[in-house]
């Protein structure tokens, strides 16, 4: 381990690779983008690092966000997997939960996608536990080896997923089967369900195990190659990979459980939002990430993003910890069209190619970005710091042809109408996550990032009467910045269904200690020093008869009365009532955290003079308060200083994004340089 002076975070997106460098001595950040290279993803990562020019031999910590596992599944490029399960239950993986996705509820010609594992590659062997983990039928050891040989020799299977009923209670049969296969067929990779997700529900556990087996080889190859190339450039720091449910893990640990990285796309931004929310003392924060094709919102309560313990990848359930994110198909590239009298926006997107009309790459359908240009929010000559000229006339023609003429309105009205519709969809998504959590959006702050977040955020705030909108520094690179704050995290879980009344604190303590032993060992393997490690206990509880459960934090002394009280309070807060029924445990959870030194939030120096130092002129743009074009004062962000105040209408430009505040809103720059947008007190409200 070295003590280099730089930290580096690289996030691979669909269009761009974002690279963020932190100089830990000066607190300075630098940010660069490179194009994504789908055929050889490591290439784009190295290009982005090269663009930054960071000396790799002076990098202490490299944190990487990759959607490689996700893409391997979407593109069906994973390993050839076989499944060994109980005799009589060969079809658990293929039947699944027997449901079609909600989007296909009226599609009576629905075809199931080809399964990741065809039926020929699934074998049942004798052996069975009951719901208490008692052996009903001994494992047929010869049968295991025979089945494994059949799958590998007759069907070319490279990796075997083992999942037996009730293995979450007693993994012995699974572990024995794995040992037998490893001994007989040392070259075959084996994934064992009780190692990967020791939780109940056989299909979900099998699916998680299959995905692990499916992506592991490709993930290993990628990490080894990237790490090798970086080591060639004398990189000798720590290499972390972002997890889907918060924090990061070492590259070595990620190779052993790659499913934990699979949905880590939005994780960097949310990690950053949690960190900022805690630092700025914003208890209820909504992270609002608007990119080119989609908008992700997530609720952050008391510095913690709302978590989920199950995720969906295409139609495959995954028992991993993740964030509870709502995504809608609305972003800068979303296409607008006129449909039988209604103005529609999204979910179709012009994507990176051809992109919006104004990019001049062959796009012909008007997008949100084209409307933003026509409304005056974007400077045609200042986009991406002037690197890219935007074709305003083309955008206007597109809006006229597709929308304004059929609607019989001006192009400006068409563009404003497009924003109205986009806003209605966006507000719906934000409102739903707050309603779902039983929270009042008016008491929440919105953290707006991603390329188009600062443009839309203040409009959403105005529409929903939010307390404030926060625009972080370098909002389009915020996800990469957030990765710099990621701790080393590992999650352990075990389904244990029992009435709390029937359980002794002593027995529960024994289970916790067993799990904590595994969790602490994981942190140690990942190089976390014992003094930097902490373990937190959670217990998922439910009323007897319920299917869903709520997770409550439990203290180390396992005070059952306090635990039940916490559960009932949470139940009432979330669901509006308590019940008479007995309380039952469902899943025992331990999160291990190896805390990372957070990137310092440096206070910006004061600057002389008033805010006029940052003003570069005025631009005609559309104000949603007046519903008309008016003069917006234009400021350049890097000249702003703490304490500066700006009243709308105004535009704050920073090349890769623009913050738009309307009449009736004002902005103050906080000590760290964040833009805090609020409604003018006593200001006109609509």
């Amino acid at each position, binding site marked *: 381990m070295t003590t280099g002076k730089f930290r580096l975070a690289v996030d691979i997106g669909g269009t761009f690779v974002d690279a963020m460098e932190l100089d830990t001595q000066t607190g300075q950040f630098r940010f660069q983008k490179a194009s994504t290279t789908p055929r050889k993803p490591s290439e784009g990562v190295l290009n982005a690092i090269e663009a930054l020019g960071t000396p790799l031999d002076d990098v202490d910590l490299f944190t990487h966000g990759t959607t490689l596992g996700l893409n391997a599944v979407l593109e069906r490029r994973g390993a050839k997997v076989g499944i060994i399960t109980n005799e*009589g*239950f060969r*079809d*658990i993986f*293929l*039947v699944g*939960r*027997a*449901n*079609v996705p*909600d989007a*296909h*509820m*009226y*599609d*009576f*010609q*629905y*075809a*199931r996608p080809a399964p990741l594992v065809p*039926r*020929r590659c699934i074998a049942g062997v004798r052996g069975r536990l*009951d719901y208490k983990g008692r052996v009903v039928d001994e494992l047929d050891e010869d049968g295991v080896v025979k089945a494994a040989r059949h799958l590998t020799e007759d069907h070319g299977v490279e990796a075997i997923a083992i999942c037996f*009923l*009730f293995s979450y209670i007693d993994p012995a049969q699974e572990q024995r089967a794995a040992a037998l296969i490893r001994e007989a067929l040392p070259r075959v990779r084996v994934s064992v369900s009780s190692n990967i997700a020791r939780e*109940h*529900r*056989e*299909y979900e556990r099998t699916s998680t195990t299959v995905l692990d087996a499916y992506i592991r080889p490709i993930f290993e190859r990628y990490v080894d190659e990237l790490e090798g190339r970086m080591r060639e450039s004398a990189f000798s720091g720590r290499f972390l990979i972002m997890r889907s449910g918060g924090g990061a893990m070492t590259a070595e640990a990620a190779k052993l459980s790659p499913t934990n990285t699979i949905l880590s796309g939005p994780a960097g931004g949310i990690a950053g939002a949690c960190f900022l929310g805690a630092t700025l003392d914003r208890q209820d924060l909504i992270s609002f990430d608007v990119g080119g094709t989609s908008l992700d919102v997530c609720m952050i309560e008391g510095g913690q993003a709302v978590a989920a313990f199950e995720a969906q990848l295409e139609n495959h359930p995954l028992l991993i910890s993740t964030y509870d994110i709502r995504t809608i198909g609305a972003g800068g590239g979303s296409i607008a069209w*006129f449909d*039988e*009298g*209604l*103005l*529609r*926006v999204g979910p179709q997107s012009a994507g990176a190619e051809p992109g919006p009309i104004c990019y001049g790459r062959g796009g012909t359908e008007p997008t949100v970005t084209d409307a933003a240009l026509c409304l005056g929010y974007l400077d045609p000559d200042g986009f991406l710091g002037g690197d890219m000229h935007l074709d305003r006339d083309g955008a206007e023609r597109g809006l006229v042809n597709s929308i304004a003429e*059929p*609607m019989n309105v001006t192009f400006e*009205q068409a563009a404003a*109408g*497009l924003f*109205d*519709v986009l*806003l*209605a969809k966006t*507000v*719906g998504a934000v409102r*739903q996550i707050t*309603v*779902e959590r*039983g929270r009042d959006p008016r008491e929440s702050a919105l953290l707006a990032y991603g390329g188009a977040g600062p443009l839309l955020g203040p409009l959403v705030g105005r529409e929903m009467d939010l307390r404030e909108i926060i625009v972080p520094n370098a909002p389009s690179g915020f996800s990469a910045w957030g990765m710099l704050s990621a701790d080393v995290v590992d999650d352990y879980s075990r389904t244990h269904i029992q*009435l709390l009344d029937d359980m002794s604190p002593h027995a529960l303590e024994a289970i916790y200690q067993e799990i904590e032993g595994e969790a602490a060992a994981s942190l140690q393997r990942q190089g976390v020093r014992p003094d930097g490690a902490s373990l937190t206990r959670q217990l998922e509880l439910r009323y007897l*008869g*319920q*299917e*869903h459960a709520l997770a409550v934090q439990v203290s180390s002394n396992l005070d059952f009365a306090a635990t039940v009280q916490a559960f009932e309070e949470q139940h009432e807060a979330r669901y*509006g*009532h308590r019940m*008479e029924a*007995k309380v039952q445990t469902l899943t025992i959870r331990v999160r291990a955290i190896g805390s990372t030194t957070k990137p310092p939030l440096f206070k910006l120096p004061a600057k002389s003079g008033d805010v006029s130092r940052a003003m570069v002129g005025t631009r005609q743009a559309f104000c949603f308060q007046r519903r008309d074009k008016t003069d917006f004062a234009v400021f350049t962000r890097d000249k702003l200083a703490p304490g500066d105040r700006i009243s709308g209408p105004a535009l704050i430009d920073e090349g890769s994004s623009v913050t738009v505040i309307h009449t009736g809103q004002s902005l103050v720059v906080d000590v760290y340089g964040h833009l805090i947008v609020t409604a003018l007190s006593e200001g006109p409200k609509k």
Partner: protein
Amino acid sequence: MVAPHTEPIDGATTEVIRHHFISAAEEMRMTLTRTACSPVIYEVRDFGISIYDSRLDLVAEATGLTRFLGANDYSVRKVIDYVGREGLGPGDVILSNYPYWNGAHTSDATLTAPVFAQDGGQPFAFLCVRAHWADLGAKDAGYVIDSTDMHQEGLVFPGTFVFRRGEPIREILEIIRFNSRSPDIVLGDFDAQIAAIRTGQRRLAGLLEKFGGDRIDAAIGRILAHGEAAARRALADIPQGVWSATDFLDDDGITDEPVPMKVTVTHRDGRFGIDFAGSSPCVAGPVNLPFGSTMATCKVAFKALTTPGEPSNGGHMRPLDVHAEPGTLFHATYPAPTFTQWTGIVALELIFKALAQAMPERLPASSGGDVPGFMMIGVHPDTGSAYAISNNDAVGWGATTRHDGADTLNHPCQSIVRNTPIEVMETRTPMFFDRLEIIPDSGGAGRYRGGVGLRRDIRFLADGEFLTVMKKTKTRPWALLGGASPDATRTILFPGTSRQRTVGTIRVAVAAGDTVSIRTAGGGGFGLPRERSPADSAADIEDGYVTGSGAAPDLGGPAVKAASK
């Protein structure tokens, strides 16, 4: 049809208002599922939430089960007719579950509430929240399969105020409390429905304040016109003609006689008529369908054909006419029993059976044809607590002109519902599963084969009551254009013993050691089996979907009695 621009509302504002209505319905749904007590509501999604305008046209609805959506359209008119508009005021809520008006069995309780503009006057909108209630004192706990009139099916409310001007009517709630076997859950779910209504009222009040009643009215006019135009555009691509189909429901739950069903679909001059003339009169047992439920089934079929991708509004349904004579199977009248709603499930594919011959590229062959449901009720030996756990099993779906039918999915009428995991059922009940596997050769053969069905072998580890509901075990799922019809669904009670028998719907006491085997049907095939590509046939054999034992494809034929083992 593009509305003239002289209207006081533009296409952008209309779309904004449309999104606000849909978002309001979704927020109502989240409030309901977030605060409901009963797993049937928050997990099986046994509910329907809709918003109507002052003329009682559907403006928006929340996502839920297809066959629940649509029943509200019928019930809201009946309820408002019954209570009259004159006496309605802000904060009023009306409860109804009278089957013939509510379009469902008595367990589905609908709350209807008017929404007023702040200045009083006439209601500007109506909200409906329908949800399944655990128990209202019907003759049997759990589910009723053999009632002979409505009065055995639980407490009935025709259209009864449960809130007046925002104040609960305690006497009514006490009547519910004293008539239900599980009053806490029922009243908890009632509170959740009220919370959903309050959410909707708040959101609509905000909408009114923002846009004003006139603009919202104008927007609703355009939203409905848009829905109608979209449906008509889709209909223009569908062939015109008159088509009929017949089939049989197994029995009425009282006698063993098959119940004939017939549908005639007429598509002509922009109208799409569905007529059930020729079906059985009302029968003695609880398979009669209230007309509102028949309408809901027809709407699902019509929606699937015309505008499957759009959130529903009343405009989408304007070209649809549904007819069933009062007093018949598809239009139950007092006091006909209606508890077992499986007729609506089977009728969906009866409509498709009529149409598929004429438009096979749009509709598949029959699925397994039914929702094979089972339930176990008893007291768990571990906890001493009562349990009632149900599961709907998967069937094969029908083959299409382009691909094989999907294997082992929930029936199309509730395809988004999930089955119950083995590990959950074995933990919560004394059922032990010896097998859950596909049945080889159960998909109808064809150029494209039907999806395969499922075999589930259950062993009981303790005494209890076991219930199955399946109403299409006597006729095979139909095939298309030369495909084969597979075996029908069946339940084999106590196989290998002297008590063995093959049944459909049954409620039976079981003892520790007893076994039951459920065999669900696959889907019908499409096209001649000999036209199947050799590669597909070889893959089927390699994967074990077909045994290749040379069994001649069965080409259907007359209704058959379910095969015994």
